[in-house]
Structures are given as C-alpha cells and as structure tokens.
C-alpha cells in the first residue's frame, strides 16, 4: 500500500510538471503583450522595452519557464500584473472562499448521492426510485446558471427566505454566512449529486444482484448487516472515482456560481484574470485547479484500494 501511494505521488508530481509546461506554453502562445496590457496602448516603445526587460519578457521562453517554475517550487507565484501585488496575496482569500464553497458542495452531494443511490438500488423500479431518478436527472440536465437563477427567483425573490448573493467579511455572523451559502452550494452541487447518485445506483444494483449478497442473505444475516458489510464496501468503490471527477467538474461550476451570486472566490477571480490578461495569476489558478483535481483522483484510488483488496492485484 505504501509503495503504491509513493509511486502514485511520484506520478502526481510528474503530471503536475507536465501541466505546468502546458500552462506556460499556452500563456506564451496567447495573443496580447503583457507590457502593452500594463502600460496601455499609448506607451512609447522605449517604455515597453524597459518594462519587458524588467519583467524578463525579453529572455528566451525556456529561461522564463525555469524562473517561473523555480519560484513556484519556493512558494513564490510571481506578481500579479493587474493588482501589482504578490499572486499568493491575491489568491489566498479567493482560494479559501472557494474551498469553503466546494467542500460544502461535496460534503452535501457525496453522502446524499451515495445514500439516495443505495435507496434507489434497493427499491429498484419502485415509484420512489422513479421519483428520485427523474428529479435528479432533471436537475442534472440544467446548467448551474439556470438552476441557480431559478433558485434565486424562488427562494429570494418570491419567498424571501434566502439572500440572492453571498459575500464574505468579518461583519457577518455565522448564521448570515451559512444562509448566504445555501443557494450557491445547492446550485453548485445539484449536477454532481445526480452523477454520484446514478453511479451509486448502478453500482449498488449490480452488487445487490451478485451471488455473494445472495449467499450472505442465505446465511441468515440481518438485512442491515448485509447492506453495511457486504454491499456498501463493494458498491462505493467505483463511485469514488465519480466523486473525484466531480471535484474537477466543480472548477467549472465555481466560475458560474460565484459570478451568479457575486461570491469572491477563485472562479470569479479566474474570469476577471482572463479578461485582464493577468498571466501570473492565470498560471497559478490553472495550476491549483490541476493539483486539486489530481489529488482528488489519487485519494479516490487510495480509497478504492482500501475498500476492495482485489483492486490492483490482478
């Protein structure tokens, strides 16, 4: 197991290195000159040249990449060209806010999806199964800005139960923050809830039909024991990778949901950064998203191995 984790961590580092190369190359190819962006269209060629040599933009790409990577490895992500502050300083609060939103989404969607999926599998083809399945498919079929918009209309405009925006700041009480987060979390996690549920339903249904579950029942075991010790460990395995994939999916969702609710997180920052060609910030955000995604997959694989001793032995 330890060897597996170490090997996978090595692979993870390799993946992230490849991603960093890719990100850097793309930002090189992107149209638009950073110096012009900063100084504006009216800048003299001389000013531009000075700024370029200050920023190191006149050096070969490989040297620029080496410097950047060296900085990243030491925790120095560079200076935001737009904010004129270190990237880490700009990123930290946005990252924290998004982490809160995304974890709340996963913590809401994963257990609920697993539970509902199991219920659907146990009551296969019953009215309850059909009801749960159709509601979630309906929810999953709509993009976040539609579900989010609908929820704002229903819960904020009509019912007035929840605020249509979500901010952060010390002035808020905990209750305030929580009530502001409910709608964005729901909008963010409905789609992945549906994915997790569908996967769990299929996986649990297959396990429920398997010979070993029949054998366990025919040993006279309690139904609850059979579900907890014979069905769940086997059924959750494949669902874990779907949960990991949905964490990647969430990066896209964050952009939409945070913009919709005016929430100061990574997604909204990303939109702003792209619009303003803030290359150092853009590179860092892309790298963070890739790292989170790769880590999530690693965790899913480790989880699968822990649940099912067969994984990796064949």
């Amino acid at each position, binding site marked *: 197991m330890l060897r597996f984790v170490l090997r996978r961590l090595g692979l993870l580092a390799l993946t992230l290195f490849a991603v960093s190369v890719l990100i850097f190359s793309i930002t090189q190819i992107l149209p638009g000159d950073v110096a012009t962006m900063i100084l504006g269209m009216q800048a003299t060629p001389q000013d531009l040249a000075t700024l370029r040599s200050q920023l190191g933009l006149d050096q070969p790409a490989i040297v620029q990449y080496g410097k950047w990577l060296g900085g990243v490895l030491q925790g120095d992500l560079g200076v935001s060209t737009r904010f004129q502050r270190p990237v880490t300083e700009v990123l930290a609060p946005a990252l924290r806010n998004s982490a809160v939103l995304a974890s709340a989404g996963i913590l809401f969607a994963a257990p609920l999806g697993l539970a509902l999926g199991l219920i659907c599998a146990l009551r296969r083809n019953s009215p309850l199964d059909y009801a749960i399945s159709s509601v979630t498919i309906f929810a999953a079929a709509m993009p976040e800005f539609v579900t989010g918009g609908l929820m704002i209309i229903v819960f904020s405009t009509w019912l007035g139960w929840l605020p249509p925006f979500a901010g952060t700041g010390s002035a808020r009480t905990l209750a305030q923050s929580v009530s502001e987060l409910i709608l964005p979390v729901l909008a963010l996690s409905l789609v992945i809830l549906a994915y997790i549920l569908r996967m769990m339903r299929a996986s649990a249904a297959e396990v429920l*039909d398997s010979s070993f579950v*029949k054998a366990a029942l025919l040993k*006279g075991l309690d139904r609850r024991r059979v579900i907890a010790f014979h069905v769940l460990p086997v059924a959750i395995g494949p669902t874990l990778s779907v949960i990991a994939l949905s964490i990647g999916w969430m990066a896209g969702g964050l952009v939409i949901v945070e913009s919709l609710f005016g929430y100061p997180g990574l997604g909204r920052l990303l939109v702003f950064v792209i619009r303003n060609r803030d290359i150092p910030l853009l590179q860092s955000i892309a790298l963070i998203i890739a790292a989170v995604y790769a880590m999530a997959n690693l965790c899913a694989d480790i989880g699968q191995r822990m649940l099912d001793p067969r994984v990796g032995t064949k």
Partner: protein
Amino acid sequence: MPLLEVAHLSVDYQTTRGRVRAVNDVTFALERDEVLGIVGESGSGKSTLAQAVMGYRAQGTAATEGSVSFDGTLLLQCRPTELRRIWGRRIAMVHQNPLASLTPTMPVGDQVIETVRQHRGIDAVAARAVMLRSLTAVNLPDAARIAKRYPHELSGGQRQRIMIAIALSLEPDLMILDEPTTNLDATTEAVILDLLEEIKGRLGAAMIYISHNLRVIARIATRVAVMYAGELVESGPVDGILRAPAHPYTRALLACLPRSGMTKRTASLQWIEGELPAQHLRGQGCIFYSRCSARTERCQIAPEWAPVAAGHSVRCWYPQAASAVAAITGAATVGLPSADVVLEARDLAKNFGHRRGAAVRAVSDASLRVPRGSIVGLVGESGSGKSTLLRCIAGLEDPDRGTVRFLGVDLPASVGKRDKAVLRSMQMVFQDPESTLNPAHSVGISLRRHIQAMQGLSATDAQRCVEKALQQVRLDPGYQHRLPRELSGGEKQRVAIARAFLSAPELVLCDEPLSSLDVSVQSAICRLFLDLQGDDHSSYVFVSHDLSIVRYMADSIVVMYLGEVVEEGSAESFDRLPLHPYTEALFSATPDVDPGAISKRVRLQGQVSEADKSRPGCIFSPRCHLTKGPECDAIAPPWQETSERRYRCHWAPEELRALQAASPGAIGATALAGAS
C-alpha cells in the same frame, strides 16, 4: 416424518418476454439422513428449485406455488425474520462458484464468524474459536492464517472449503449444495467430495446435492431425482437409477456418458436430439415429448407418476425399468492412425513475464507428436500448460524455445508469419463458441468471410462451401441466416467446428471444445469430431479436463503437469498399470457412473504450486503419494519406457506396477483386470 417435504412446487419468473415457468409441480421428500442428488442439464431449473426450497425469492420471481415443509415449518409462508432464523442455522447452502459467492472485501474468517454470531449471539472470541474449528474440520491446515485471507487470495478448492465451513459452522439439519464442485479441477473435486462424504457421516445432516454431472451424483447421493425442463421425471435410489433407469431421458443421459473401458473402437455414444422445449411450446403432454425417441400419441397427455420398483418411480407412460442401458456396440469410427507424422512439436517452452520479476513457466520443454489420422488427447489440471502448448503450436503464443514441424516443414513461431496454406491446414476450435463468433454477423457471413480469407474463393464457390460445411456438422442450410444469439450452445459449437473444417485442415487443435456444453450435446459433438475424422482423415489434438471423454476419443494420450509432459502413450494402454503417480491420481479422481465400479482413492495433497516448477527434482514429488523422498526431491526423474508408454518417474515400471497393484482397490474395473 421426513425432514423436508416439497409438494407441487412451481416457480415463475417475470422476464421481458413474459412469464417463464422455471420449476413446475415438483414434489419430493427428504429423510434426515438422506443425500438426494438432483441431476439436470442447464435450463432444467435445478438452481431455482434449490433456492425455492429454502423459501428464497430470487430477483424477478413472479410467483411461487405449492408448499415446502421443513421440519414442520411451512417455509413459503414464513416471514423474512423467521426465514433468517432458519437460513444458515438449520438449512445451509453451499453455492456454485465460491469466488463469486464469497464477499470480496471481507477476510474469509470473518465471513464464518459473522454467521456464527448472527445465530448464536456469542461474543467475538467464542465465535472465532468456532470458526477455527470449522476451518480445521474442512481440512484447511493453518486455519488462523487462512482466516485472514481474502477470497481472491485462495485457491478454488480452498474457497469451496470455506463455503462448506460456513455451512458447517452451525451444524445445520440440511445442507443444500448447488454444483459445489463445478469449475474445480478433477483432483480438487475428488477431495471436496471426500470431505462431503466425511461430513455426512460425522454430522448426520441431510443433503440435497445438485449437479449436472451424473458421475458426481452417483458418488455422493443415496437417492437421485432427475430434472428436465423444470420438472422431475424420475426419482429413486441411486443404484436403481443407474442400473435400471426407467425414464427415456435418464436412459438417454446415461447413454451419453462414456463408461470406463469404452472407446470409440468398441462403442458409440448416444446423444439427445433437439433441445429444451421453449416455454410457449410446452403443451399439456409429457415434458420430454419433443425429444423422446419412444413417444406415442398417448404422450400428449401428461403422464402420472408410476412406481417401477421400491422407492423408484417415474413420470412416463412406458416405464422400462427392466431394460438397463444397452451399451451401444459397434465402432464409432474407422479411421486408423498411419505412420507418417503430421505435427511434431519439439521442446516447446513458454514463460510468461510476471510483475514481481520472476517468470512464470507455463510450458517447459514439452514435445508432442501427432501421427496422421490420429487423435492425441492432452490432459492435465488447470495450470498444467495444456492450453498454452496448444496456442504455441497454433502460433498464437510465441514460444521462447522449441520448434513446430508441420507436414515436414519447420513453421515460423508466430501465426502472422505463417503461409496461408499452413493456416488452412491447421485450424483451431476454442472452448467458448460464444466468444469466437461475431455476434453481429450471421452464421453464413462468418463462415463465408473465413473461407474467402483462407482460399480467395468467389462468392458463389464460397457459398457452396458454406452450405456443404453446415451439412457436415448437421445443421440445416437455413442456419446461415441466423445470428449467434439465435443458436443454442451446441449449435454454436457446431458452427465453430464447421468453420474450422471449411478449409479441409490436416490438423485441428481443439481447446476444451466440449466443456461449455451440456452432456446430451457433448456426445453429439464428439460423434461429429469422429465422423469428420473418418471422412477427411484429419488429425486432432484434443485438450480436455474430462478424462473419460479423452479416453473414449483419443488414440494416444499426453498427460501434463505444471507445464511438463509427465506421461504419454497409446490411449488403451492407460487401462493398464503402471501409471505415472499423477496420472493414477487424475484417473482415480474421476468418478464412474457404473455402480459398483471399484474406485481406488488416490488423493493428492496440497495444490499445484508455481514454486514447484523451479525444484531441482521431480516437479510432482511434493504432492506425490508414492514419493521416494530425497531422491525425488533432488534429482530430475528419467523417462521410464514400457512397450506402449513412457513416463517420467524414479520408479521403474516393474516397481511401480507392484506398488500400484498392491494398494487396496484399483483404478477401475478394467484397470483391475489389466493389472491382475
């Protein structure tokens, strides 16, 4: 009062194509010390019956009628909580395919413990003691270590022992065993059957033993019920059923099986024409009507049970209890092997790379010689390398060493580099016809493509060939428009054989061509092979784990163990001692349907182990019952020659014959005669 009384039990399934009756009007009773064997082919409903007898409603069950009374309790009327108190504790089930029936994520010891705790309500320490006792009772040495393993870390035999240990742990009154030894090697099967007999004696539990294999049933059961298309057609004491079968189906089934000493030169095997009647074609009459050779108009009315002897009754209008199964004499084939050699494989060796670095030797220095017009039977347990050897000859695996000489020419190792002419003359028939036929292509297209690729014929010529080939395997020309899914297993294998024979091959390599087929179809395919051989004078290498079939079919037999050839010689000489100790164990593991056939019990210890291959001495000595000790462990055994056979062993023929003849019993009636 009997322990179990089943009356008029019927089970319907709901399928997408409507309701299907899987079990129809089954009635039987079981006494407390009885072992009832239920024998039936695939689709006979025997597994459904086993579950229904426990009161278990399988997924998709639409209705269960009739009654099941277990020790006075009506199981079909029980609430789930009541059933749970009976399941596991009073009725225990041992399932087919233990790998699928044990939970993969739980150590096997825990799977015993949870059953014990559920029913006894004792603490974990006490339950663990019961578990260790049960594991020891099923002859699993080092129980504490095995208990920690997961199912996939155990061998097939060990897994089935665990299943039996779970069933045993609560000393049930009734054990239901559903094909418990199917998919196990012959030697493992024999050991499990010994274990079950021992348990029966010790525990005094009643057993219902379900199998498609009459030989196994004959060994273990005291009474036999024969099931066909969801109905019981005959029931009686095991001797009565085997010696004087009364139902035409039972008689036909027995005639499908080669007996010991029966060869293709002395007797023909029978088979049952037709197939299981489709649901909508099952009328009011006798269920066997459509396939019965003795049917009359009266049979259109369902027959009642009629007694033919004490405790022996049959559901037929014309019970013929007196007539035993007539051995069908007359040679099945006239083809005689000639002197020239079609195939000569020399010193083939194949290692498979392994993740941990050590290579797995699948085949080490095996040689094989096939005279023209002969059938060479290749036998051995799983892992013996027989399939790999075949695939090396076919060029599907690149051997590491060795040569394949075919029709006097050395062949390139890989099939891709071989001439079309070679491909045409060397064809292969695989174990599973299901996966060798393209499901999207009709039979005609599959065959036409094959012949066109092989011989570049015009469309009309190819068409003519296809029709002729179908005729050869006794399929109507109309079959060329059918898709594989519209064929039965036997028909699919016929198509696969037709495809192999399209190019009039000199040599056909058959890799377990019968093992996915029902007994009644197996013998028909055997007959087909023999007829085709008679017509074309082609040669076969015939791989099978079913020794009785190989002994019936083959002209010469090659026995493999752990990738090495340990014995080879003419087929009929295997009736006579001495035999290589491994061959002796393999033969004695195959039960016979002849009641009273003396079968010697040679049982192998331990399991096939990869580690044995790298031993300096005899690879078989760790499991050998006749081992000489240090000599066998240290020195590779020489080939010992007799006039008709040769084997690798330290025992010289005279010594070995004396040893084997002296031990109690002998390998079977014929072997006994040969030895005396």
